[in-house]
Protein backbone atom coordinates (compact mmCIF):
# COMPACT_ATOMS: atom_id res chain seq x y z
CA UNK A 1 0.00 0.00 0.00
CA UNK A 2 2.70 2.47 1.05
CA UNK A 3 5.01 1.24 -1.69
CA UNK A 4 2.22 1.68 -4.21
CA UNK A 5 1.61 5.19 -2.92
CA UNK A 6 5.30 5.99 -3.38
CA UNK A 7 5.24 4.42 -6.83
CA UNK A 8 2.14 6.37 -7.81
CA UNK A 9 3.77 9.54 -6.57
CA UNK A 10 6.87 8.86 -8.67
CA UNK A 11 4.97 7.83 -11.79
CA UNK A 12 2.75 10.88 -11.57
CA UNK A 13 5.78 13.06 -11.99
CA UNK A 14 7.18 11.22 -14.99
CA UNK A 15 4.12 10.62 -17.09
CA UNK A 16 5.21 13.47 -19.33
CA UNK A 17 8.50 11.71 -20.01
CA UNK A 18 6.62 8.59 -20.97
CA UNK A 19 4.39 10.42 -23.39
CA UNK A 20 7.44 12.07 -24.89
CA UNK A 21 8.95 8.62 -25.44
CA UNK A 22 5.86 7.47 -27.27
CA UNK A 23 5.89 10.46 -29.59
CA UNK A 24 9.61 10.22 -30.22
CA UNK A 25 9.93 6.49 -30.77
CA UNK A 26 6.68 5.73 -32.51
CA UNK A 27 6.69 8.94 -34.50
CA UNK A 28 10.26 8.89 -35.75
CA UNK A 29 10.40 5.10 -35.74
CA UNK A 30 7.48 4.83 -38.09
CA UNK A 31 9.24 7.05 -40.61
CA UNK A 32 12.46 5.09 -40.22
CA UNK A 33 10.68 1.81 -40.87
CA UNK A 34 8.81 3.25 -43.85
CA UNK A 35 12.07 4.54 -45.33
CA UNK A 36 13.64 1.13 -44.83
CA UNK A 37 10.90 -0.53 -46.87
CA UNK A 38 11.95 1.63 -49.83
CA UNK A 39 15.64 0.92 -49.37
CA UNK A 40 15.17 -2.83 -49.10
CA UNK A 41 14.37 -3.09 -52.79
CA UNK A 42 17.85 -1.99 -53.78
CA UNK A 43 19.90 -4.19 -51.51
CA UNK A 44 22.15 -6.98 -52.75
CA UNK A 45 20.75 -10.29 -53.86
CA UNK A 46 23.01 -12.16 -51.51
CA UNK A 47 24.88 -10.48 -48.75
CA UNK A 48 24.85 -9.27 -45.24
CA UNK A 49 21.46 -7.79 -44.67
CA UNK A 50 20.85 -4.93 -42.32
CA UNK A 51 17.88 -5.35 -40.10
CA UNK A 52 14.71 -3.64 -41.35
CA UNK A 53 14.78 -1.80 -38.05
CA UNK A 54 18.34 -0.53 -38.46
CA UNK A 55 17.08 3.05 -38.63
CA UNK A 56 15.26 2.60 -35.34
CA UNK A 57 18.35 1.44 -33.46
CA UNK A 58 20.05 4.82 -32.95
CA UNK A 59 16.65 6.37 -32.18
CA UNK A 60 16.00 3.75 -29.54
CA UNK A 61 19.40 4.30 -27.96
CA UNK A 62 18.91 8.04 -27.91
CA UNK A 63 15.37 7.82 -26.52
CA UNK A 64 16.35 5.33 -23.84
CA UNK A 65 19.33 7.33 -22.68
CA UNK A 66 17.28 10.50 -22.67
CA UNK A 67 14.48 8.85 -20.70
CA UNK A 68 16.88 7.32 -18.20
CA UNK A 69 18.71 10.60 -17.71
CA UNK A 70 15.48 12.54 -17.17
CA UNK A 71 14.33 9.97 -14.63
CA UNK A 72 17.66 10.17 -12.85
CA UNK A 73 17.46 13.96 -12.79
CA UNK A 74 14.77 13.60 -10.12
CA UNK A 75 17.55 13.00 -7.63
CA UNK A 76 19.12 16.31 -8.62
CA UNK A 77 15.81 18.15 -8.52
CA UNK A 78 14.86 16.84 -5.10
CA UNK A 79 18.15 18.13 -3.72
CA UNK A 80 17.69 21.44 -5.51
CA UNK A 81 14.07 21.81 -4.38
CA UNK A 82 14.80 20.46 -0.87
CA UNK A 83 11.93 18.00 -0.93
CA UNK A 84 13.98 15.07 0.38
CA UNK A 85 12.85 15.66 3.95
CA UNK A 86 9.22 15.52 2.96
CA UNK A 87 9.78 12.21 1.22
CA UNK A 88 12.14 10.70 3.75
CA UNK A 89 9.82 11.39 6.67
CA UNK A 90 7.28 8.92 5.26
CA UNK A 91 6.60 5.94 7.47
CA UNK A 92 8.67 3.67 5.26
CA UNK A 93 12.33 2.76 5.21
CA UNK A 94 14.80 4.52 2.96
CA UNK A 95 15.25 1.28 1.05
CA UNK A 96 11.57 1.27 0.19
CA UNK A 97 11.72 4.86 -1.00
CA UNK A 98 14.71 4.18 -3.22
CA UNK A 99 13.20 0.97 -4.55
CA UNK A 100 10.05 2.86 -5.48
CA UNK A 101 12.09 5.37 -7.47
CA UNK A 102 14.00 2.64 -9.24
CA UNK A 103 10.81 0.68 -9.90
CA UNK A 104 9.19 3.77 -11.37
CA UNK A 105 12.16 4.23 -13.70
CA UNK A 106 12.13 0.59 -14.73
CA UNK A 107 8.39 0.66 -15.35
CA UNK A 108 8.69 3.79 -17.46
CA UNK A 109 11.43 2.26 -19.58
CA UNK A 110 9.69 -1.08 -19.87
CA UNK A 111 6.18 0.17 -20.51
CA UNK A 112 6.77 3.26 -22.58
CA UNK A 113 10.10 2.70 -24.30
CA UNK A 114 9.82 -1.06 -24.39
CA UNK A 115 6.19 -0.93 -25.39
CA UNK A 116 6.94 1.37 -28.30
CA UNK A 117 9.83 -0.82 -29.35
CA UNK A 118 7.64 -3.91 -29.25
CA UNK A 119 4.98 -2.18 -31.32
CA UNK A 120 7.53 -1.11 -33.91
CA UNK A 121 8.98 -4.59 -34.02
CA UNK A 122 5.58 -6.15 -34.51
CA UNK A 123 4.80 -3.60 -37.19
CA UNK A 124 8.02 -4.40 -39.04
CA UNK A 125 7.23 -8.11 -38.74
CA UNK A 126 3.92 -7.74 -40.53
CA UNK A 127 3.75 -9.68 -43.76
CA UNK A 128 3.93 -7.53 -46.84
CA UNK A 129 6.02 -4.79 -45.29
CA UNK A 130 9.49 -6.30 -45.53
CA UNK A 131 10.56 -9.28 -47.55
CA UNK A 132 12.79 -10.54 -44.75
CA UNK A 133 11.40 -10.07 -41.26
CA UNK A 134 13.42 -8.70 -38.36
CA UNK A 135 14.85 -11.47 -36.22
CA UNK A 136 14.24 -12.19 -32.56
CA UNK A 137 17.88 -11.35 -31.85
CA UNK A 138 17.19 -7.83 -33.03
CA UNK A 139 14.29 -7.65 -30.61
CA UNK A 140 16.53 -8.67 -27.73
CA UNK A 141 19.18 -6.21 -28.87
CA UNK A 142 16.53 -3.51 -28.73
CA UNK A 143 15.91 -4.40 -25.12
CA UNK A 144 19.64 -4.14 -24.49
CA UNK A 145 19.52 -0.63 -25.90
CA UNK A 146 16.60 0.13 -23.58
CA UNK A 147 18.68 -1.18 -20.69
CA UNK A 148 21.18 1.53 -21.50
CA UNK A 149 18.48 3.89 -20.31
CA UNK A 150 18.61 2.19 -16.94
CA UNK A 151 22.40 2.47 -16.95
CA UNK A 152 22.11 6.21 -17.41
CA UNK A 153 19.36 6.42 -14.81
CA UNK A 154 21.66 4.82 -12.26
CA UNK A 155 24.57 7.00 -13.26
CA UNK A 156 22.64 10.27 -13.19
CA UNK A 157 20.90 9.29 -9.93
CA UNK A 158 24.19 8.38 -8.29
CA UNK A 159 25.70 11.70 -9.34
CA UNK A 160 22.60 13.50 -8.07
CA UNK A 161 22.67 11.87 -4.68
CA UNK A 162 26.41 12.19 -4.22
CA UNK A 163 27.54 14.74 -1.69
CA UNK A 164 30.94 15.20 -3.30
CA UNK A 165 31.93 18.40 -5.03
CA UNK A 166 31.55 18.78 -8.79
CA UNK A 167 35.28 18.98 -9.26
CA UNK A 168 35.90 15.74 -7.36
CA UNK A 169 33.82 12.60 -7.79
CA UNK A 170 30.26 13.93 -8.08
CA UNK A 171 29.98 13.32 -11.81
CA UNK A 172 31.63 9.91 -11.77
CA UNK A 173 28.25 8.20 -12.01
CA UNK A 174 27.47 9.91 -15.29
CA UNK A 175 30.99 9.37 -16.64
CA UNK A 176 30.79 5.69 -15.79
CA UNK A 177 27.50 5.40 -17.67
CA UNK A 178 29.18 7.00 -20.67
CA UNK A 179 32.01 4.50 -20.50
CA UNK A 180 29.52 1.62 -20.41
CA UNK A 181 27.84 3.04 -23.50
CA UNK A 182 31.15 3.18 -25.39
CA UNK A 183 32.25 -0.29 -24.30
CA UNK A 184 28.88 -1.80 -25.28
CA UNK A 185 29.44 -0.76 -28.87
CA UNK A 186 33.07 -1.85 -29.06
CA UNK A 187 32.07 -4.72 -31.28
CA UNK A 188 30.83 -7.12 -28.66
CA UNK A 189 28.46 -9.99 -29.19
CA UNK A 190 25.08 -9.99 -27.49
CA UNK A 191 26.25 -12.07 -24.54
CA UNK A 192 29.23 -9.85 -23.69
CA UNK A 193 27.21 -6.72 -24.29
CA UNK A 194 24.60 -7.99 -21.81
CA UNK A 195 27.29 -8.54 -19.21
CA UNK A 196 28.69 -5.06 -19.74
CA UNK A 197 25.24 -3.51 -19.41
CA UNK A 198 24.44 -5.60 -16.36
CA UNK A 199 27.67 -4.38 -14.78
CA UNK A 200 26.75 -0.86 -15.81
CA UNK A 201 23.47 -1.20 -13.90
CA UNK A 202 24.66 -3.13 -10.85
CA UNK A 203 27.84 -1.24 -10.03
CA UNK A 204 26.22 2.19 -9.73
CA UNK A 205 23.08 0.63 -8.20
CA UNK A 206 25.08 -0.79 -5.31
CA UNK A 207 26.69 2.58 -4.74
CA UNK A 208 23.34 4.34 -5.03
CA UNK A 209 21.88 2.20 -2.28
CA UNK A 210 24.84 2.74 -0.03
CA UNK A 211 24.92 6.50 -0.49
CA UNK A 212 21.16 6.85 -0.13
CA UNK A 213 21.03 4.80 3.04
CA UNK A 214 24.02 6.41 4.68
CA UNK A 215 24.22 10.01 3.61
CA UNK A 216 23.07 13.07 5.51
CA UNK A 217 20.09 14.91 4.07
Amino acid at each position, binding site marked *: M*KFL*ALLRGQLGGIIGTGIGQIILILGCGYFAVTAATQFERFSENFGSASSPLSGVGPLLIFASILCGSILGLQFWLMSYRR*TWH*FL*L*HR*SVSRVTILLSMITAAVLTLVVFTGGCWTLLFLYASLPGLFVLPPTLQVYFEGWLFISLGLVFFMGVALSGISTAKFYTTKLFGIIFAGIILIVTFMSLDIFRASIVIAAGILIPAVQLFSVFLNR*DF
Partner: protein
Amino acid sequence: MAEYVLEAQGLTKFYGSKPAVDHIDLKIPRGCVCGFVGRNGAGKTTAIKLMLGFLKPTAGSSRLLGCDSQNLTPAIRQRIGYAAEGHHLFRDATIGNLAGFHSAFFHKQLASAKQGEAGWDGKLFWDMIEYFGLSKKQKIKKLSNGQRAQVSLALTLAPNPELLIMDDPTLGLDAAIRRQFLEGMIELIMHQGRTILFSSHILGDIDRVADRIIVLDKGVIRANCTIEQFRTAVKKVRFVFGQSMPETVDIEGLLHSRRADKELEMVLVGTADEKIAEWAKSAGVEEYQIIKQNLEDQFIEYTAPIGQIRPFAWEAKQ
Protein backbone atom coordinates in the same frame (compact mmCIF):
# COMPACT_ATOMS: atom_id res chain seq x y z
CA MET B 1 4.29 5.34 27.81
CA ALA B 2 7.75 6.84 28.11
CA GLU B 3 8.10 9.88 30.30
CA TYR B 4 10.23 11.74 27.81
CA VAL B 5 9.26 11.82 24.17
CA LEU B 6 12.50 13.41 23.10
CA GLU B 7 15.91 12.81 24.62
CA ALA B 8 19.34 13.85 23.50
CA GLN B 9 22.66 13.04 25.14
CA GLY B 10 25.80 14.80 24.08
CA LEU B 11 24.43 15.32 20.61
CA THR B 12 27.17 16.83 18.49
CA LYS B 13 27.60 17.56 14.79
CA PHE B 14 30.74 18.93 13.30
CA TYR B 15 31.01 20.30 9.76
CA GLY B 16 34.70 20.20 9.15
CA SER B 17 36.29 21.66 12.25
CA LYS B 18 33.33 23.83 13.15
CA PRO B 19 30.63 22.49 15.49
CA ALA B 20 27.10 23.17 14.29
CA VAL B 21 25.68 21.46 17.36
CA ASP B 22 27.87 20.97 20.41
CA HIS B 23 27.02 18.44 23.12
CA ILE B 24 23.32 19.02 23.40
CA ASP B 25 21.63 17.38 26.34
CA LEU B 26 17.88 17.58 26.24
CA LYS B 27 14.82 15.91 27.69
CA ILE B 28 11.37 16.95 26.62
CA PRO B 29 8.53 15.49 28.66
CA ARG B 30 5.27 14.32 27.18
CA GLY B 31 2.62 17.00 26.77
CA CYS B 32 5.13 19.81 26.70
CA VAL B 33 5.18 22.64 24.21
CA CYS B 34 8.75 23.69 23.65
CA GLY B 35 9.86 26.76 21.85
CA PHE B 36 13.22 26.23 20.23
CA VAL B 37 14.88 29.58 19.66
CA GLY B 38 18.24 30.83 18.56
CA ARG B 39 19.85 33.35 16.28
CA ASN B 40 20.54 32.64 12.62
CA GLY B 41 23.09 29.87 12.34
CA ALA B 42 22.65 28.80 15.95
CA GLY B 43 22.08 25.19 14.93
CA LYS B 44 18.35 24.78 15.39
CA THR B 45 17.65 23.14 12.06
CA THR B 46 20.73 20.94 12.40
CA ALA B 47 19.60 19.83 15.86
CA ILE B 48 16.13 19.02 14.58
CA LYS B 49 17.51 17.07 11.61
CA LEU B 50 19.78 15.12 13.95
CA MET B 51 16.86 14.22 16.13
CA LEU B 52 14.83 13.08 13.14
CA GLY B 53 17.64 10.94 11.78
CA PHE B 54 18.29 12.97 8.62
CA LEU B 55 21.82 13.72 9.77
CA LYS B 56 24.32 11.43 11.44
CA PRO B 57 25.77 12.88 14.66
CA THR B 58 29.48 13.18 15.08
CA ALA B 59 28.99 12.18 18.69
CA GLY B 60 26.16 11.53 21.09
CA SER B 61 22.72 10.18 20.43
CA SER B 62 19.07 11.07 20.58
CA ARG B 63 15.81 9.20 20.95
CA LEU B 64 12.30 10.02 19.80
CA LEU B 65 9.39 8.21 21.44
CA GLY B 66 11.87 5.76 22.87
CA CYS B 67 13.45 4.92 19.50
CA ASP B 68 17.00 5.75 18.45
CA SER B 69 16.92 8.62 15.98
CA GLN B 70 19.27 6.89 13.58
CA ASN B 71 16.94 3.90 13.37
CA LEU B 72 13.47 5.37 13.50
CA THR B 73 11.04 2.64 12.55
CA PRO B 74 8.18 3.37 10.11
CA ALA B 75 5.71 2.98 12.98
CA ILE B 76 7.48 5.64 15.02
CA ARG B 77 7.76 8.01 12.06
CA GLN B 78 4.04 7.71 11.59
CA ARG B 79 3.55 9.13 15.08
CA ILE B 80 5.81 12.10 14.45
CA GLY B 81 4.62 15.07 12.47
CA TYR B 82 7.36 17.10 10.86
CA ALA B 83 7.14 20.40 9.04
CA ALA B 84 10.46 21.28 7.46
CA GLU B 85 11.78 24.80 7.22
CA GLY B 86 10.61 26.44 4.03
CA HIS B 87 7.68 24.01 3.54
CA HIS B 88 9.18 22.38 0.47
CA LEU B 89 6.61 20.11 -1.18
CA PHE B 90 6.33 18.30 -4.52
CA ARG B 91 5.86 21.18 -6.91
CA ASP B 92 4.20 19.31 -9.74
CA ALA B 93 1.49 17.77 -7.56
CA THR B 94 -1.89 19.27 -6.76
CA ILE B 95 -3.13 19.68 -3.20
CA GLY B 96 -5.44 16.71 -3.77
CA ASN B 97 -2.60 14.54 -5.05
CA LEU B 98 -0.47 15.49 -2.12
CA ALA B 99 -3.23 14.70 0.32
CA GLY B 100 -3.76 11.33 -1.34
CA PHE B 101 -0.03 10.62 -1.24
CA HIS B 102 0.35 11.69 2.38
CA SER B 103 -2.75 9.90 3.64
CA ALA B 104 -1.62 6.60 2.16
CA PHE B 105 1.00 6.36 4.88
CA PHE B 106 -1.54 6.47 7.71
CA HIS B 107 -4.41 4.38 8.85
CA LYS B 108 -7.94 5.64 8.52
CA GLN B 109 -8.94 7.75 11.49
CA LEU B 110 -11.61 5.53 12.90
CA ALA B 111 -9.67 2.31 12.86
CA SER B 112 -6.54 3.92 14.21
CA ALA B 113 -8.41 5.57 17.06
CA LYS B 114 -9.30 2.14 18.33
CA GLN B 115 -5.78 0.83 17.83
CA GLY B 116 -4.16 3.93 19.34
CA GLU B 117 -2.05 4.47 16.22
CA ALA B 118 -1.60 7.48 14.00
CA GLY B 119 -4.52 7.99 11.64
CA TRP B 120 -5.32 10.38 8.86
CA ASP B 121 -8.00 12.89 9.70
CA GLY B 122 -9.27 13.80 6.25
CA LYS B 123 -11.95 16.08 7.60
CA LEU B 124 -9.47 18.11 9.58
CA PHE B 125 -7.22 18.42 6.54
CA TRP B 126 -9.91 19.58 4.14
CA ASP B 127 -11.44 21.89 6.76
CA MET B 128 -8.06 23.56 7.13
CA ILE B 129 -7.62 23.79 3.37
CA GLU B 130 -11.06 25.33 3.02
CA TYR B 131 -10.35 27.74 5.80
CA PHE B 132 -7.13 28.83 4.10
CA GLY B 133 -9.10 29.47 0.93
CA LEU B 134 -7.35 26.80 -1.11
CA SER B 135 -8.75 24.14 -3.37
CA LYS B 136 -8.00 20.54 -4.23
CA LYS B 137 -6.94 21.14 -7.81
CA GLN B 138 -4.42 23.88 -7.15
CA LYS B 139 -0.85 22.98 -8.07
CA ILE B 140 1.75 23.44 -5.41
CA LYS B 141 4.09 25.34 -7.76
CA LYS B 142 1.40 27.95 -8.34
CA LEU B 143 0.97 28.70 -4.61
CA SER B 144 2.68 31.53 -2.78
CA ASN B 145 5.13 30.80 0.03
CA GLY B 146 2.44 31.47 2.61
CA GLN B 147 -0.09 29.24 0.92
CA ARG B 148 2.46 26.49 0.68
CA ALA B 149 3.10 26.87 4.41
CA GLN B 150 -0.62 26.46 4.99
CA VAL B 151 -0.74 23.25 2.99
CA SER B 152 2.34 21.96 4.78
CA LEU B 153 0.80 22.68 8.17
CA ALA B 154 -2.44 21.02 7.17
CA LEU B 155 -0.52 17.94 6.05
CA THR B 156 1.45 17.89 9.28
CA LEU B 157 -1.53 18.33 11.60
CA ALA B 158 -4.04 16.10 9.83
CA PRO B 159 -2.57 12.81 11.08
CA ASN B 160 -2.88 14.07 14.69
CA PRO B 161 0.67 13.13 15.50
CA GLU B 162 1.80 12.32 18.98
CA LEU B 163 4.95 14.38 18.62
CA LEU B 164 5.02 17.44 16.44
CA ILE B 165 8.33 18.89 15.33
CA MET B 166 8.11 22.07 13.33
CA ASP B 167 10.98 24.09 12.00
CA ASP B 168 9.82 27.72 11.76
CA PRO B 169 6.27 26.74 10.84
CA THR B 170 4.85 30.25 10.68
CA LEU B 171 7.44 31.50 8.21
CA GLY B 172 5.51 33.24 5.45
CA LEU B 173 2.15 33.31 7.23
CA ASP B 174 0.31 36.55 7.71
CA ALA B 175 -0.67 37.71 11.22
CA ALA B 176 -4.23 36.45 11.02
CA ILE B 177 -3.32 33.00 9.79
CA ARG B 178 -0.49 32.83 12.25
CA ARG B 179 -2.86 33.43 15.09
CA GLN B 180 -5.24 30.81 13.76
CA PHE B 181 -2.38 28.35 13.56
CA LEU B 182 -1.35 29.08 17.09
CA GLU B 183 -4.88 28.63 18.29
CA GLY B 184 -4.96 25.32 16.48
CA MET B 185 -1.80 24.33 18.31
CA ILE B 186 -3.37 25.21 21.62
CA GLU B 187 -6.27 23.00 20.65
CA LEU B 188 -3.86 20.18 19.98
CA ILE B 189 -2.25 20.69 23.33
CA MET B 190 -5.57 20.09 25.00
CA HIS B 191 -5.43 16.52 23.70
CA GLN B 192 -3.72 14.32 26.17
CA GLY B 193 -0.15 13.45 25.35
CA ARG B 194 0.54 15.73 22.40
CA THR B 195 4.04 17.14 22.52
CA ILE B 196 5.22 19.98 20.37
CA LEU B 197 8.71 21.20 19.59
CA PHE B 198 8.78 24.15 17.30
CA SER B 199 11.44 26.59 16.36
CA SER B 200 10.62 30.15 15.54
CA HIS B 201 12.16 33.57 15.19
CA ILE B 202 8.92 35.18 16.41
CA LEU B 203 9.25 35.19 20.16
CA GLY B 204 5.72 36.47 20.50
CA ASP B 205 4.45 33.14 19.15
CA ILE B 206 6.65 31.26 21.58
CA ASP B 207 5.37 33.41 24.37
CA ARG B 208 1.80 32.74 23.37
CA VAL B 209 1.85 28.95 23.21
CA ALA B 210 5.01 27.48 24.65
CA ASP B 211 5.51 26.51 28.21
CA ARG B 212 9.22 25.79 27.84
CA ILE B 213 11.93 27.62 26.03
CA ILE B 214 15.18 26.19 24.76
CA VAL B 215 17.74 28.74 23.66
CA LEU B 216 20.43 27.55 21.32
CA ASP B 217 23.47 29.72 20.73
CA LYS B 218 26.39 28.68 18.51
CA GLY B 219 25.33 25.05 18.79
CA VAL B 220 25.17 25.05 22.56
CA ILE B 221 22.03 25.10 24.73
CA ARG B 222 22.20 28.30 26.72
CA ALA B 223 18.82 27.92 28.40
CA ASN B 224 16.33 25.14 28.92
CA CYS B 225 13.60 26.20 31.29
CA THR B 226 10.00 27.34 31.49
CA ILE B 227 9.04 30.62 29.93
CA GLU B 228 8.32 32.05 33.36
CA GLN B 229 11.74 31.08 34.65
CA PHE B 230 13.40 32.68 31.65
CA ARG B 231 11.42 35.86 32.07
CA THR B 232 12.27 36.06 35.73
CA ALA B 233 15.92 35.25 35.24
CA VAL B 234 16.91 37.65 32.48
CA LYS B 235 16.96 41.24 33.69
CA LYS B 236 18.21 44.41 32.20
CA VAL B 237 19.10 47.08 34.74
CA ARG B 238 20.12 50.67 34.12
CA PHE B 239 22.28 52.33 36.77
CA VAL B 240 22.80 56.09 36.93
CA PHE B 241 25.92 57.31 38.71
CA GLY B 242 26.24 60.74 40.23
CA GLN B 243 29.99 60.41 40.61
CA SER B 244 32.41 58.35 38.59
CA MET B 245 31.55 54.83 37.59
CA PRO B 246 33.56 51.90 38.97
CA GLU B 247 36.14 50.58 36.52
CA THR B 248 35.18 46.99 37.04
CA VAL B 249 31.78 45.58 37.74
CA ASP B 250 31.49 42.67 40.04
CA ILE B 251 27.96 41.42 40.48
CA GLU B 252 26.62 37.91 40.49
CA GLY B 253 24.97 36.83 37.23
CA LEU B 254 26.44 39.55 35.04
CA LEU B 255 26.13 38.63 31.37
CA HIS B 256 27.37 41.84 29.80
CA SER B 257 27.27 45.56 30.35
CA ARG B 258 27.33 48.80 28.39
CA ARG B 259 28.55 52.16 29.53
CA ALA B 260 27.46 55.54 28.31
CA ASP B 261 28.44 58.73 30.10
CA LYS B 262 27.17 58.29 33.64
CA GLU B 263 24.92 55.40 32.84
CA LEU B 264 25.70 51.74 33.12
CA GLU B 265 23.40 49.17 31.62
CA MET B 266 23.78 45.58 32.74
CA VAL B 267 22.16 42.37 31.65
CA LEU B 268 21.91 39.96 34.54
CA VAL B 269 20.83 36.37 34.62
CA GLY B 270 19.42 34.80 37.76
CA THR B 271 20.32 37.75 39.99
CA ALA B 272 17.85 38.38 42.79
CA ASP B 273 16.48 41.92 43.18
CA GLU B 274 18.06 42.14 46.65
CA LYS B 275 21.48 41.47 45.24
CA ILE B 276 20.97 44.19 42.66
CA ALA B 277 19.97 46.64 45.38
CA GLU B 278 22.94 45.65 47.49
CA TRP B 279 25.39 46.16 44.67
CA ALA B 280 23.84 49.48 43.69
CA LYS B 281 24.35 50.74 47.21
CA SER B 282 27.93 49.56 47.38
CA ALA B 283 28.83 51.00 43.98
CA GLY B 284 27.46 54.41 44.80
CA VAL B 285 24.63 54.29 42.32
CA GLU B 286 22.40 57.36 42.38
CA GLU B 287 19.41 55.53 41.00
CA TYR B 288 18.68 52.33 39.11
CA GLN B 289 15.81 50.87 37.13
CA ILE B 290 14.95 47.31 36.10
CA ILE B 291 13.85 47.78 32.52
CA LYS B 292 10.66 46.05 31.54
CA GLN B 293 11.28 43.68 28.63
CA ASN B 294 9.25 41.32 26.56
CA LEU B 295 10.49 37.86 25.72
CA GLU B 296 12.03 39.05 22.48
CA ASP B 297 14.02 41.77 24.21
CA GLN B 298 15.20 39.29 26.80
CA PHE B 299 16.20 36.81 24.14
CA ILE B 300 18.17 39.42 22.22
CA GLU B 301 20.03 40.55 25.30
CA TYR B 302 20.61 37.00 26.43
CA THR B 303 22.15 35.94 23.16
CA ALA B 304 23.95 39.17 22.30
CA PRO B 305 27.60 38.36 21.61
CA ILE B 306 29.96 40.25 23.91
CA GLY B 307 31.82 43.13 22.22
CA GLN B 308 29.78 42.95 19.04
CA ILE B 309 30.05 45.69 16.47
CA ARG B 310 27.02 47.97 16.49
CA PRO B 311 26.60 49.39 12.99
CA PHE B 312 23.94 51.78 14.13
CA ALA B 313 26.01 53.34 16.90
CA TRP B 314 25.35 56.80 15.41
CA GLU B 315 21.98 56.71 17.23
CA ALA B 316 23.75 56.68 20.58
CA LYS B 317 26.07 59.56 19.55
CA GLN B 318 23.13 61.75 18.73
